[in-house]
């Protein structure tokens, strides 16, 4: 990931410094949100579907032990090898071992946020493996040595001019040719050669079905299929929360996923994998990496219902104006802000504060995760665990003291207003007062409402 110690506020300030680009980013993602709105309003039973999806996931999370074991048994019976990884490092080593055991050097990979979370690519490259991301957006950011900025639209922070420059550098396309069709054709030809030459394909998993041992991978580009069908070995990597109990539940999720993600009625390719072809190996790596810990936090466990549609990204007014990289984690946006503190509280203590708690995220969530309430709850945890700056703590203590005692409050209010009227330079300071940097202070009236009330209605 990005080597940075800057927090969300600092990173987003840098992003917003280019205001026209921020507007473009905001409008692009708002367009996706609007497409989502149109699509969901065509489904009268939309809210019921969300309710069902939430209930199925809640049930599954409460019975994960059984469903995971069922899944493993059924997958094994289908001839699939199932591996268990307790953390990112285990996951990466399992994947590498499969490659070493089979003398594999060239790998294609379709989109998998889990492998981003585990930082699989840099690990494999360090170990001499050539890894090519085959999702177009992922390939673009891979060329640029950047992390994805969005879990569904990894290169959404880039304009076609940026892509043109990147392809000119790496694929030797014509300089200055920004024609999207020309550029995607270049990527297509480039990726074809990689699909054909690769020995092993890694895919993610959108849904793993306990009763069949099969799994489903959703892509719009067909790149997961292309990789898995051409390679001798298919490794599918999944977080353990991807499980659903039965095949009949899948329809609920497929109807919700694409509409929530991009406003499509369904993803272009919903590919079902059950067993290896003759001569092929199929592996599934099931990863914990902090998920058990999150499952054990009663207030945050239902964040594991997430199906990674990114609707909460697209609707988030903060995300749209700060960009995915300002979240400095593999999964950005509101859902990332409630998942990442679980993995590393210190490194991600800023994220639950990168929200106005407007609640739009919870409303678009297809599995009804109470995202904005969990942001609030994470704030309480982070403060209690001491991950908030001392200055803020002192300020809050001071404020709490003033507001707890009516007399102190009255005097402080009167003094404050007097200072603002008579000595406006004290508050009207762009360096010391962040409010005043780009906003005027409210006018301080001579009398408070309380003063008015006493004068006009009596009372002491």
């Amino acid at each position, binding site marked *: 990931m990005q080597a940075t110690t800057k927090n969300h506020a600092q990173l987003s300030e840098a992003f917003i410094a280019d205001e026209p680009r921020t507007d473009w980013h905001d409008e692009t993602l708002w367009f996706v949100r609007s497409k989502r709105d149109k699509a969901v309003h065509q489904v009268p039973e939309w809210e019921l579907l969300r309710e069902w999806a939430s209930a199925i996931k809640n049930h599954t999370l409460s019975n994960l032990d059984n469903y995971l074991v069922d899944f493993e048994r059924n997958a094994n019976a289908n001839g699939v090898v199932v591996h268990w990884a307790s953390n990112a490092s285990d996951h990466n080593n399992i994947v590498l071992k499969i490659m070493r055991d089979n003398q594999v050097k060239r790998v294609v990979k379709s989109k998998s946020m889990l492998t981003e979370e585990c930082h699989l690519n840099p690990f494999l490259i360090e170990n001499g493996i050539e890894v090519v991301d085959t999702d177009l957006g992922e390939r673009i950011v891979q060329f640029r040595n950047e992390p994805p900025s969005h879990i569904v639209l990894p290169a959404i922070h880039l304009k076609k001019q940026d892509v043109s420059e990147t392809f000119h550098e790496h694929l030797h396309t014509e300089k200055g040719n920004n024609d999207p069709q020309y550029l995607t054709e270049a990527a297509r030809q480039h990726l074809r050669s990689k699909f054909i030459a690769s020995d092993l394909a890694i895919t993610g998993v959108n849904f793993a079905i306990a009763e069949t041992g099969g799994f489903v991978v959703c892509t719009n580009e067909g790149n997961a299929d292309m990789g898995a069908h051409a390679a001798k070995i298919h490794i599918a990597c999944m977080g353990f929360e991807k499980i659903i109990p039965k095949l009949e539940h899948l329809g609920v999720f497929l109807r919700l996923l694409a509409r929530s993600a991009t406003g499509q009625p369904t993803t272009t390719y919903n590919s079902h994998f059950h067993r290896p072809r003759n001569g092929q190996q199929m592996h599934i790596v099931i990863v914990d990496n902090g998920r058990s810990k999150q499952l054990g936090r009663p207030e945050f466990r239902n964040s594991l219902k997430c199906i990674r549609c990114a609707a909460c990204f697209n609707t988030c007014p903060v995300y749209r104006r700060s960009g995915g990289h300002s979240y400095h984690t593999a999964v950005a946006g509101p859902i990332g802000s409630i998942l990442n503190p679980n993995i590393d509280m210190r490194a991600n203590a800023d994220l639950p504060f990168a929200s106005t708690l407007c609640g739009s995220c919870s409303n678009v969530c297809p599995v009804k995760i109470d995202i904005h309430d969990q942001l609030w709850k994470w704030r309480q945890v982070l403060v*209690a665990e001491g991950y908030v700056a001392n200055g803020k703590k002192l300020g809050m203590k001071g404020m709490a003291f003033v507001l707890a005692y009516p007399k102190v409050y009255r005097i402080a209010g009167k003094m404050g207003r007097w200072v603002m009227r008579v000595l406006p330079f004290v508050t009207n300071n762009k360096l010391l007062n962040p409010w005043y940097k780009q906003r005027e202070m409210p006018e301080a009236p001579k009398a408070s409402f309380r003063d008015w009330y006493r004068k006009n209605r009596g009372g002491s």
Partner: protein
Amino acid sequence: MKVGLFVPCYIDQFYPQVAVATLQLLEKQGCEVVFPLNQTCCGQPMANSGFANLAKGCDRNFVENFDGVDYIVGPSGSCVLHLKEHLHDGNNEAKATYIRQHVYELVEFLVDVLKVEKLPSSFPHKVGLHISCHGQRGLHLSSMSELVAPPFSKPEKLLSMVKGLQLSKPARMDECCGFGGTFCVFEEAVSVKMGKDRVGEHAANGVEYITGADTSCLMHLEGILKRQGSTVKTIHIAEILNS
């Protein structure tokens, strides 16, 4: 019906005219209104910053002040939502519970409890409506663009009773303004950018005023408008309804 007027701290200090309008509006509707003089703050600034444990003093003070009224009404959706969700008092939990269940934001109180159907108000101006998130998604003052549900709007219902008022709604009708409590200073850049975008949409619609049920959003938007030298003004919905 005895109504306790809840005036959030920053309204008391900076926007007394909003509280005056609220008081007069309720009195005109025949309510017996009392203003407990020792009230301060609902505690939201601390709680939303992660310091809910420091808001206990505010909670205790709030319960003491608003004991014994039938309803508690305030002109701020955000503060009211905070009380509904988080007000507790270990020594007086029954009283805190009563308050949580009987605290209303002004618009919802007028529409749902007093069932106001007409008002003598007049405000011959073009007015943009800003929907505050906590009022909308928290208190359900209006339907939400994300949900597949029948449309309704309590603030619009009231504004439609005002003579001469021309209502204008932005295309992004329920996008957050970016105030967000302490977010407005700790995430200053995003906060201001969000506010500028809201203000921009209303200004492009040619409104004279931006109104809403949450003074905090309006304070933020007002700060931006003034810095821009805009002629657009902000005004709380209580002031329009009381005009």
